[in-house]
Structure formats: structure tokens, C-alpha cells
């Protein structure tokens, strides 16, 4: 529809009944033209006005890949890339937890300690107490969720700022972690047990069919979902994505998915940690964007008072989010334990939390609450892990590594912030 027509229709044909005289669509809105050309035009406009979405992060990833490949010649090796996909699972899952907390406009500083304590619990129960490993892992995650509930309780019911509750938690749970591990300290995970396999197992023991199947399934589901949604909107008379755009999006995803599958198959196949991490990102994304519960999280993050007045049980939303994030951190902790082959006193300390927060933010989740998605955990942690692995390949001096990590992090975020600021002054902030 062109804008002029709408305006005229409304002005020239006022209905005589109590029915509306003005149209709900504003004639000043520069509506996107139908079809593919319109899509391209809007894309250009968005780029110009700084509404870049994930584009800078993806460009950043490509840049990082190109630079390190140029320097070392090893970065894009199949086995190096496979390693990266395996290693993102641990901190990435913690970052998913962080995204939930950030959406509430809060921060959880204890997630690193929680990852550490649950890894310790799982390892001690399965190795020292000889419990079934599945059960041990479940108990560890349950313990973490209980810890999250405790934090949530102090925050939501007692009113202690989340920052402080989780700061106290950070200290207390790393104490518990030491206590659980006891005097002997480090506990090795069982050889070829469940915990060990979290990191080292490849689906179908490296069978290429699994990789291809996973990729094709993902692409097909995405395409079908987009198509059905557009169809329903069209049927209901609402503006919908044009088919050409859906085809383009699905095509881009297909290329990425199939290239990734090909690379993985060059090495050991489809790593279990990647499958689990991707599945969790997809599920949590669905929860956040397509369920009432997810909507409630956004509402509380946007305005606590408005959410409360809308009848939302704010305390419960807050408590449950802290439970979810603690659960994610616990799962992440198990992956880290699997990766290092043991649970030790320092697991989850140091940079783990920082990297996960940075991942969420780099990926585009707002620190100010109410805006973000779990995909940002995936994108962000890929950036960070690529830089870390790349620097390890280059073997530069440690002090320089620190500074480079800091600088790149800053660079990525500056780009993001500048784009977001332009966006805000264009009224979509």
C-alpha cells in the first residue's frame, strides 16, 4: 500500500457511525514496500541508521578468522574449528544464564562459583561416593537450582540488590566448592564416563551422517517455521515477510550450516557439546520469545512496577530466572569439568564469569534490562573463544594477550554501542 492512498481514504470517507474516523496506520510511517526490493531497501536504510543487528558481530567473527588464519595458517583447520565448537559449550551455557539475568536488568556474579560447586558435587558424588553418574549430575544441577532459588529469594522477597546477594554467593559457594572437594582437592572424572563424554563424545562416534542430518534438520525447521508464520499472517491480513526474503534467509542459514557440517566432518564429526549447546539456545530462545513466561521476563526487565500492576507475579519471575541461570551455570560447569578432565578448586573462578558476561553483551544483550536474546550468548562466546584460541595459536606474550583481549572486547562493543546509539536517536531504543 502506498501512504498517500491511506491518508486520503481516511480523510475523504469519514464513516458516519461511532466507528473510527482515523486509520490505525500512521500515514507518516515510511512503510516498507512489498516484495524483495522493499526488503533490500529497508536493509540499506537500517544499515545507514545504525540498526545493525548481528551484522557487526558476524563481521567481527569473519575478521578474527581471517586475521588468525593469515598469521598462523592453522586457525581454519578442521580440528581447530572443532575444538572451538567444543569449548564454547561451557562458558556459552553460563552466558545463556547471564542473558536471562540481564534481561531482568540484574546481574548474577555468582554463576562462576555455581559452575564450580556443581562440577565439584557431580565429580565427588560419582567418583568418590560411587553414585551413578547420571544421578550425580542431576543432583549437582538440582543443587545449583536450589542455590539460584536462594539467591532469588533474597533478591525478590527480602529486597537485597541482586548484585550484593550474588557477590556474597560468589564468596560463599566457592567456599562450599573447596569444602566439597576436601583436602584432596582435585577429583578426576571417570574415564569414558558420562562426565568425560560430555566434552569428548562425537555423535555416532564421528559418523558423518549425524552431522549432515543435524544441519539439514535445523535448516528445514527454520525454513518451514518462517514459511508457516508468514502464511498465517498473510491470511489474517497482517503484514508478513515476503517469500523472497524467507528464501534468502533460509538460504544464508543453509550455507552456514552446510559449510559447518562439512568442516566438522573433516575432523571428528559432530561434537556432543555443540549439539547440546545449540539445542539449549534454540529452546531458551523459544521460551523467551514465544511464551507468556518469556514475555513476563521482558516485562519485569522493562518496568517492574508496570509488570506488577499487570498482575504478573514479579517475585516468582525473578526467583525462577535466578534458578534458570544457576541451572545453566551448573550445566556449563559440568562441561568445563569434562573439558579439563577434573573438578578442581579453581573451576569457575577467574575469568570464567567475565568472559560469559562479555559474551552476552558482545552478542547484543543489553546491560540495562529488557532487551536481548540467547543467541547473543552463542555469537558472543564464539567471538571470545576464537580470540583466545587464536592468540594461543600465535603464542604471544601473556601481558600482550591480556591487552589484546581487552582491546578487542572494547572494539567489538564500541561498534555495537555506537550502532545502538544511532538506533536510539532514530527512536528504536
Amino acid at each position, binding site marked *: 500500500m502506498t501512504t498517500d492512498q491511506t491518508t486520503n481514504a481516511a480523510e475523504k470517507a469519514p464513516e458516519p457511525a461511532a466507528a473510527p474516523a482515523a486509520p490505525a496506520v500512521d500515514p507518516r510511517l515510511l512503510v516498507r514496500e512489498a516484495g524483495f526490493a522493499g526488503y533490500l531497501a529497508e536493509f540499506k536504510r537500517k544499515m545507514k541508521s545504525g540498526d545493525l543487528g548481528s551484522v557487526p558481530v558476524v563481521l567481527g567473527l569473519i575478521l578474527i578468522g581471517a586475521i588468525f588464519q593469515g598469521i598462523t595458517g*592453522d586457525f581454519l583447520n578442521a580440528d581447530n574449528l572443532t575444538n572451538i565448537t567444543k569449548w564454547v559449550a561451557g562458558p556459552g551455557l553460563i552466558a545463556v544464564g547471564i542473558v536471562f539475568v540481564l534481561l531482568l536488568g540484574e546481574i548474577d556474579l555468582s554463576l562462576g562459583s555455581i559452575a564450580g560447586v556443581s562440577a565439584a558435587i557431580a565429580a565427588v558424588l560419582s567418583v568418590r561416593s560411587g553414585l551413578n553418574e547420571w544421578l550425580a549430575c542431576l543432583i549437582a544441577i538440582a543443587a545449583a537450582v536450589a542455590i539460584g532459588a536462594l539467591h532469588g529469594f533474597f533478591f525478590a522477597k527480602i529486597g537485597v540488590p541482586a548484585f550484593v546477594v550474588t557477590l556474597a554467593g560468589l564468596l560463599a559457594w566457592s567456599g562450599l566448592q573447596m569444602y566439597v572437594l576436601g583436602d584432596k582437592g582435585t577429583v578426576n572424572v571417570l574415564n569414558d564416563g558420562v562426565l568425560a563424554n560430555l566434552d569428548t563424545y562425537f555423535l555416532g562416534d564421528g559418523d558423518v551422517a549425524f552431522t549432515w542430518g543435524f544441519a539439514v534438520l535445523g535448516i528445514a525447521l527454520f525454513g518451514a517455521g518462517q514459511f508457516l508464520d508468514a502464511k498465517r499472517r498473510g491470511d489474517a491480513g497482517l503484514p508478513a515477510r515476503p517469500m523472497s526474503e524467507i528464501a534468502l534467509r533460509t538460504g544464508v542459514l543453509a550455507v552456514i550450516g552446510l559449510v559447518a557440517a562439512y568442516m566438522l566432518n573433516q575432523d571428528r564429526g559432530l561434537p556432543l557439546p555443540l549439539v547440546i549447546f545449540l539445542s539449549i539456545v534454540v529452546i531458551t530462545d523459544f521460551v523467551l520469545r514465544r511464551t507468556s513466561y518469556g514475555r513476563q521476563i521482558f516485562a519485569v526487565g522493562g518496568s517492574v512496577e508496570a509488570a506488577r500492576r499487570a498482575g504478573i507475579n514479579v517475585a516468582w519471575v525473578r526467583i525462577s530466572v535466578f534458578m534458570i541461570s544457576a541451572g545453566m551455570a551448573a550445566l556449563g560447569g559440568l562441561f568445563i569439568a569434562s573439558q579439563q578432565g577434573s573438578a578442581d578448586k579453581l573451576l569457575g573462578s577467574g575469568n570464567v564469569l567475565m568472559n560469559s558476561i562479555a559474551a552476552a553483551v558482545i552478542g547484543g544483550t543489553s546491560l540495562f534490562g529488557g532487551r536481548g536474546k540467547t543467541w547473543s550468548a552463542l555469537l558472543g562466546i564464539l567471538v571470545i573463544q576464537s580470540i583466545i584460541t587464536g592468540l594461543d595459536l600465535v603464542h604471544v606474550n601473556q601481558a600482550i594477550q591480556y591487552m589484546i583481549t581487552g582491546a578487542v572486547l572494547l572494539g567489538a562493543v564500541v561498534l555495537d554501542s555506537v550502532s545502538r546509539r544511532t538506533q536510539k536517536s532514530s527512536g528504536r531504543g
Partner: protein
Amino acid sequence: ACGKAGSDKKDDAKGGDSKSIGLLLPENASSVRYESFDKPFIEAKVKELCGDCTVKYSNAEGSAAKQKQQFDTLIAQGVKVIILDAFDAASTQSWVKEAADKGVKVIAYDRLATGPVSAYVSFDNEKVGELQGQALVDALGAKAADANIVMINGDDADPNAGKFKSGAHKVLDGKVKKVVYEQSGEWKPTVAGQKIGAAITQLGKDGFQAVYSANDGMAAAIITQLKSANINVPVGGQDAGLDAIQRLVSGEQSYTIYKAYKPLADSAAELAVALLQGKDVKAVASASIDSDTDKGIPAKLLDPKVVTKANIKDTVIADKLYTVADICTGTYADACKAAGLQ
């Protein structure tokens, strides 16, 4: 072998793998030794033994998970020999096994990594503790038997800290009157300083006659707090950092433990090059040791040395660790003269 230093690195990386040695060090927060001594010494020795070999170094910054990533990254780069100073020696069992399966050889450096390592080079850590204890007894001299001791240990999470502690106890228990206060300083100077403050409060200014500090960093803070309380008793540490040597010169600190990094690094480099060239390691690592998981690991165990004001010249200066000019800066010049260094 000799040859030109600084050979073409790019060539190396491509051609591989039989020319590069991985070096993984655990951290650099609590001690400077890793990047200022171990790394350069190993690099130099490797260059000396094999001119076109390179060392690929990474530091785990105190995280076992990070070290695992660096370990795997080296393997992904095609490195065949890795010198591993494990951040958490108990964790490495599965990594080393994985590497062994791929034909990558691992040398346990400084800390005895678990798993099927090809060789082990280290100081005897329990011995370090024993030497510390003995040096403290020596510093007390005749008063030792009547002396009460304060012990500020390393971080409980560090297995070596336990060895230092038990070694020290082995000597001290019996030779001194009593260990009246014992706490972990977590390897952190500020924490150690505050612990000694608590000890002074509790025991009084005359309540103890010497302080055992697990390392020099903590010793510095302990000495500062003692000074501010006007207490002058023997304090010792370990690591032989420049700051500690200066305190030895000025008489504030009684001793430090000098683990001559050079022989340690040289041995590791020799072992690595030997493994790279497919030679037998027994020529260097003639001893044998058992780890928690494996038995009969070829090992080379070196002896640490005690440094006091009296033997600075024969140890750290003789080894070219520091020059007299390094040590005898500004305020230390007079003390240096008195100690006969200048």
C-alpha cells in the same frame, strides 16, 4: 647442534611439527619466574640444541580449563612434544592419555602431571620445605629450641603448598619450641600482612621469635607489618626474586630458597629435543618416580639451594640471574657495601 638463531618461523609452522616444542606454563600471577626465567631459559637451550626448532609457549593464567584448551590447540597445530607445567597436576590424566594416543609426548615440568608422561623434571618440593625449615632454625641459631614460630603457608588449593608445609614441619617440629600460629596466606601479600597483624595482636610482640613464609611475596608484606609493630625477628621465604635478594642484603629477610631455574629449564629442553629427535630420555632423566597414576616415570630431580646474605654472590649472581647493579640500587647501596657485594 648449532645453526642460525631466528630461523624462518613460517617455514617451521608449515613444515611442521617435528621442529616445534610446546611449552605450557601454569600462571604468572603469584610468581614472576615463569615468564622471566623458565620460558627464556628453555627457549635459549632449545635454540642451542636444535637451531631450527621453535618453542610455542602459552600460559594458563591459573585455570586448568584454559590449560586444556592450550594443550589441545598445540595438538591441533601438530606439535609432537609438549613441556607441561600443569596448573592442576591431578587434572591432566585424561589429556596426557589422549595426547599419547595421538603420539604426542609430554614432559612433566616442575609439577608431576598425572597420566602417562614421558619424563619428569623438577625440584623436590618437599625438600624445599625442609630447606626452609632448616634455614629458619639456622637463622635462630642457639635460640631455636626456645623459639615460637608463626607459619604463613601458601594457598591450600596448590598441592605444592602442601609439600612445602609438610617439609617445613618435618624439620621445625622438634627443633623449635612450638608453632604458635599457622594460617594460609593464599599466596597473597596483602592477606599475609593482615594475618601477621592478627598474630601480633594475639601473641603479643614477644610471642614469637621467627616467621615462616611460604614465599617471598608474602614475606615482604609480613616484614612490613613487623616493622611497623617494631618487631625484628627472622623471616624467610622462597623464589629468590630480586626484591627478596635486596631484603637479604638489607638484613630484613633471613633467607630465600633459590630454585636454580636454569638447570631445570636446560634439562627440560634437553629432554624435549631428545624426544623430538627420537632419542632415549634415560640419558638425562636417570631417576625414576611414581605418580598417582603411573609408575616408573623417568625423572630428573634437582636440588634447590638456600640463599642467605652470605652466599648471594655464589648463587644468584654467579648464575647471572641478577647483576650486582640490579641488586644494589639506591637505598641498598650501603648495605651492599657492608655485605661485600660492591
